[in-house]
């Protein structure tokens, strides 16, 4: 028991601030050395093998995959070994060594991820913050002018409004349908087939999806035969055909349907796994108590997978914040359907104003803050 407590709480006997920096330096050193050595080895092997193997792209891809996996394992195994050599878990200072090794090891595990995240995501964010205080070409300091502009911009308000609509509707609808689909398909024999079919839209690119949905929303003037399904149904019941994606406000919902259609599969797969993981005993107990299937679902099952529902919700919410492909392909923000991500894209490539584009990007990022705070609180809960 005594050992386990020292292991799980390694910070207790940790050295002072000076020692912390020594630890950090060692961690950094091992991490970087490990990354460099494994990458260099992988590249060398790749270069050597490539000279022998035929010049076929697929062969190279498989080779890269294998070497990449090998390099990863090599790094994690190697850096772990180095750490154990520096602080051996035996000898006179065993307790101290274990403590030190344990305070370094997490950083070795995190190392490659942190480096890649730093380069691919943190660096661009810092760059955006810098640009948001500069003019269109990123050279001239303009202070808060871009932010001031944003507040007065009508198109920005429109995008903000639409984005909030998307945030309210899409994650809720996709999670709801996903949950229903997961719960129902688990009860029937052909559930796996049904799941696969509902999941199918996930496998379709946004470009493909926009082709598919053109056949739903297509509009031909009244009197000619409709080739869009929705208008065919409307005219069949005697209605007037509509150019759906040009109807302000409504068009946002028609675009949302596409994303819901795609994301329901994602929600279903994850929620179905969670539903299956619910301990049988709790359900059996409820059955004995005479609960109806509906009651079991809402009162027993849903509360138990609440955490997973939240993860799905979060993931889809984040996706919605970033959605631009669908809007770009279907309306490009016209007819009042603009959303933030597409508006940013517009300022970046059509307006060629990196300052304003960056400012909009930072707003998108700021919108995720509540989700971040909530996730930290959840994480704190299960760490305890």
């Amino acid at each position: 028991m005594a050992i386990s407590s020292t292991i799980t709480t390694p910070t207790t006997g940790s050295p002072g601030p000076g020692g912390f920096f020594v630890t950090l330096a060692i961690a950094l050193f091992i991490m970087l050395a490990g990354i460099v050595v494994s990458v260099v080895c992988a590249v060398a092997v790749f270069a050597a093998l490539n000279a022998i193997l035929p010049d076929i792209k697929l062969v190279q891809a498989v080779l890269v995959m294998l070497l990449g996996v090998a390099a990863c394992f090599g790094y994690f195994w190697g850096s772990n070994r180095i750490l154990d050599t520096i602080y051996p878990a035996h000898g006179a200072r065993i307790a101290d060594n274990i403590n030190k090794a344990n305070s370094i090891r997490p950083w070795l595990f995190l190392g490659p991820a942190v480096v890649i995240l730093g380069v691919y995501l943190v660096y661009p964010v810092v760059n955006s913050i810098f640009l948001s205080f500069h003019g269109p070409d990123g050279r001239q300091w303009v202070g808060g002018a871009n932010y001031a502009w944003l507040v007065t911009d009508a198109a920005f308000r429109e995008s903000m409004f639409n984005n909030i609509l998307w945030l309210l509707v899409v994650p809720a609808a996709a999670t709801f349908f996903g949950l229903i689909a997961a719960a129902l398909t688990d009860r029937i024999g052909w559930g796996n087939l049904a799941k696969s079919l509902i999941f199918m839209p996930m496998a379709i690119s946004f470009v493909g999806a926009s082709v598919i949905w053109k056949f739903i929303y297509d509009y031909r003037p009244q009197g000619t035969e409709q080739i869009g399904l929705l208008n065919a149904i409307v005219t069949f019941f005697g209605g007037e055909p509509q150019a759906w994606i040009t109807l302000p406000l409504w068009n946002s919902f028609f675009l949302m349907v596409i994303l819901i259609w795609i994301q329901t599969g994602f929600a279903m797969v994850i929620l179905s796994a969670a539903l299956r993981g619910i301990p049988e005993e709790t359900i059996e107990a409820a059955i004995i108590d005479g609960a109806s299937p509906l009651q079991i679902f809402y009162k027993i099952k849903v509360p138990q997978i609440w955490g997973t529902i939240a993860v799905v919700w979060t993931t889809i919410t984040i996706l919605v914040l970033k959605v631009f492909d669908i809007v770009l392909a279907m309306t490009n923000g016209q007819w009042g359907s603009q959303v933030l991500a597409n508006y940013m894209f517009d300022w970046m490539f059509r307006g060629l104003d990196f300052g304003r584009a960056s400012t909009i990007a930072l707003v998108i990022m700021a919108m995720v803050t509540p989700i971040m705070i909530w996730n930290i609180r959840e994480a704190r809960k299960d760490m305890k």
Partner: protein
Amino acid sequence: MSTVVGSRPALTWAVHLAVLFLVALWTLPTLGILVSSLRDKDQLAISGWWTALTASERNLVARAAPPEDAQPEGGRWVLTGNVFNGDGAAAAFGVSSREPSAFAAGDTAELGDGATVTVEANGDYVIAYPEKPDGKRGQRIFISSVEPPKFTTENYENVLFSEGLGKSFINTMTVTIPATVIPILIAAYAAYALAWMEFPGRALLLATIVGLLVVPLQMSLIPLLRLYNEVGIGKSFIGIWLAHTGFGLPLAIYLLRNYMAGLPREIIESAKVDGASDFEIFRKIILPLSFPALASFAIFQFLWTWNDLLVATVFLGNNEEQLVLTGRLRELLGSRGGNWEILTASAFVAIIVPILVFFAMQRYLVRGLLAGSVKGG
């Protein structure tokens, strides 16, 4: 559970019907382009795909052979031919755009100057001139016909063989394979550290990763490509593998950490009591137990990289040697926007592989997910 359902047949039926309804709703749009891609291109543009199995009425304009080709026959100059390329049944015909169906099939219409034209129901036409005619412009004949439903694989042949899709297919595979596998491993270690190792700043790091989930990709394109050019990677497959790894990592870490944090604490603590190191715990306990989560993330990452367009257009060139499938599809959309048959067929070609992969992996997915107890959160 099955006992509950079994005891209420009405409920069972309701469940079956509800699922059937959901499935129908979700597959209908895709079914639409599958059917469309197999239809004849002329029918595709004028009638809904759901009418594919019924005969369609069409008005078409055919052009007879040039008058100068007329042959003398019984004192008149005669041109013969058929207005249809394939099958068809003419109901009515006309010779002026103002009255395209003025005459019933088999009737004779006046063309002026004593010339006449007769169109039979099978499409055979006879034009007779009193004098030897000249001119290169053939007479227009307007036909109202009933066409049987036509299906063809020609659209697929066009797409697969003449539009360079094959090469793009290989490019996409080349991008996808390493970009799917590598991030998972890196993320798994990081996720374990975040879920089960204690160190200062853990909550902050997790929050940062959640925050990074939402970084708009567009913002990172120019700084990263600039970096690539400075380092000397430029536009290459290496660059795009790394980019997909970077962009996929936050979600991978987020999902995997949530999964790993839900694994039973007792197993890990007892292993620690037995003196196992974190590295051993990860390799021998966590990794096998998280296999289902790894598999499901692999599917998602595969789908994203397969379907990605933005990252590929920026970090890979646009030339024939590097163009990926979604890029090809987009170019077809742009340059062949009017050709629905090309669009539908190529869209379907692009989605068929991800769907196959999913069908192949999903058995795995469900089985794997059952193995671990997911508490969630």
